[in-house]
């Protein structure tokens, strides 16, 4: 997405808009799932090049939980939700109806629960993208990884590299109960969706 600055701004606005719509849908779906209010807000959104992806985050040694889904349809892509381990457990506590336990380790049940959360967020986001681009995309079954952020980010970086050169990083804020936590959604459009997005937002 190497367009002029002005055009870039417009594209960013468009992507932020998609992110906000996706987040709103995800909030509703998640709140319904756990019967508690979960608010998801977009606090920042930027486009990042492939090689920078593993270095675009400051705390890359931290262990994080990531859910990755492939977008399947007329156009392809990848989508990933990244949250800290603590926040992942807090979120899965809500889904599984568990009390918060400081000594709880991330286990199989949590992995399944966080996959579901990732699935909901990804579907909501892809839906929002589809509505703008008129390209229908469905998320694949989710996969989960618990590892160093740096190691995890190499995967989408390599995917992006194979088929496209930039990915959209959406910093999202989750508000649930008394807790507030930050997470990231990464949307990696393939070349085709990228061009459609540029065309849509660049000429608005």
């Amino acid at each position, binding site marked *: 997405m190497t367009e002029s600055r002005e055009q870039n701004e417009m594209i960013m606005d468009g992507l932020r808009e998609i992110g906000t719509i996706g987040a709103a849908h995800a909030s509703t779906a998640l709140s319904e799932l756990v019967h508690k209010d979960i608010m998801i807000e977009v606090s920042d959104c930027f486009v990042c090049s*492939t*090689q920078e992806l*593993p*270095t675009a985050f400051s705390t*890359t*040694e931290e262990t994080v939980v*990531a859910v*990755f889904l*492939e977008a399947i349809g007329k156009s392809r892509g990848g989508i990933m939700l990244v949250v800290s381990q603590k926040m992942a457990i807090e979120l899965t506590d809500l889904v599984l109806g568990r009390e918060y336990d400081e000594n709880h380790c991330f286990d199989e049940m949590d992995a399944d629960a966080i996959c579901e959360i990732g699935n909901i967020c990804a579907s909501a986001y892809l839906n929002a993208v589809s509505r703008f681009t008129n390209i229908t995309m469905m998320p694949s*079954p*989710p*996969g*989960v*990884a618990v*590892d*160093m*952020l*740096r*190691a*995890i*980010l*190499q*995967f989408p*970086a*390599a*995917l992006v*590299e*194979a*088929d496209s*050169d930039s990915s959209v990083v959406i910093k999202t804020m989750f508000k649930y109960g008394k807790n507030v936590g930050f997470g990231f959604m990464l949307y990696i459009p393939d070349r085709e969706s990228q061009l459609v997005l540029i065309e849509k937002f660049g000429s608005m």
Partner: protein
Amino acid sequence: MIERRAEGLVTDEDKRVTLARRVDEDQVCQAHYVDGDAVVGVGEYHVVHAPEKLVCLGLGSCVGIAIFDLSTQIGGLIHAMLPKYEEGRDKTNASKYADSAIMLMVDELVEMGARKPLLKAKIAGGAQMFSFISSDTLNIGLRNSAVAKETLKKENIPLLAEDVGGTKGRTIFFNSSDGSIRIQKNGEVSQI
């Protein structure tokens, strides 16, 4: 196929590390250090004289390839992100691909005085971070390590040891004086 650049060698006396030049920007990569060891970033390779040590932080699906000649005490480490140069879209940075990076680094090592018939290699990394992915095209970790091994074979460099695959990320420390690699994986430390 790949532009080999002997002039890409820049020796920085202060750091005593020969930095690989990135083919794309004609710019010398600034090495950064962890505990005195130079970090090899994603899609880069560094070559050094013993007793320098090199580090790849957080190898996920990427693969770390160490090639060294103990007799002349010269070695290097690659942090390759993708398997094949020919399949890649970005042709400007050949050090990003396992196959082309090996060729480039071997040339540089020989340029520095290493003896090609005595070169040995070890590889680590190539994990499959997301276990659900079954299709081989998406298993970049597996393809990275397979292509690395294939290329080493073509270059007639014996592979002494490997620690590849699995689902966990690794951090590796390469010691150029004895060719050993210390691997941190999932909180455990091992050596090959």
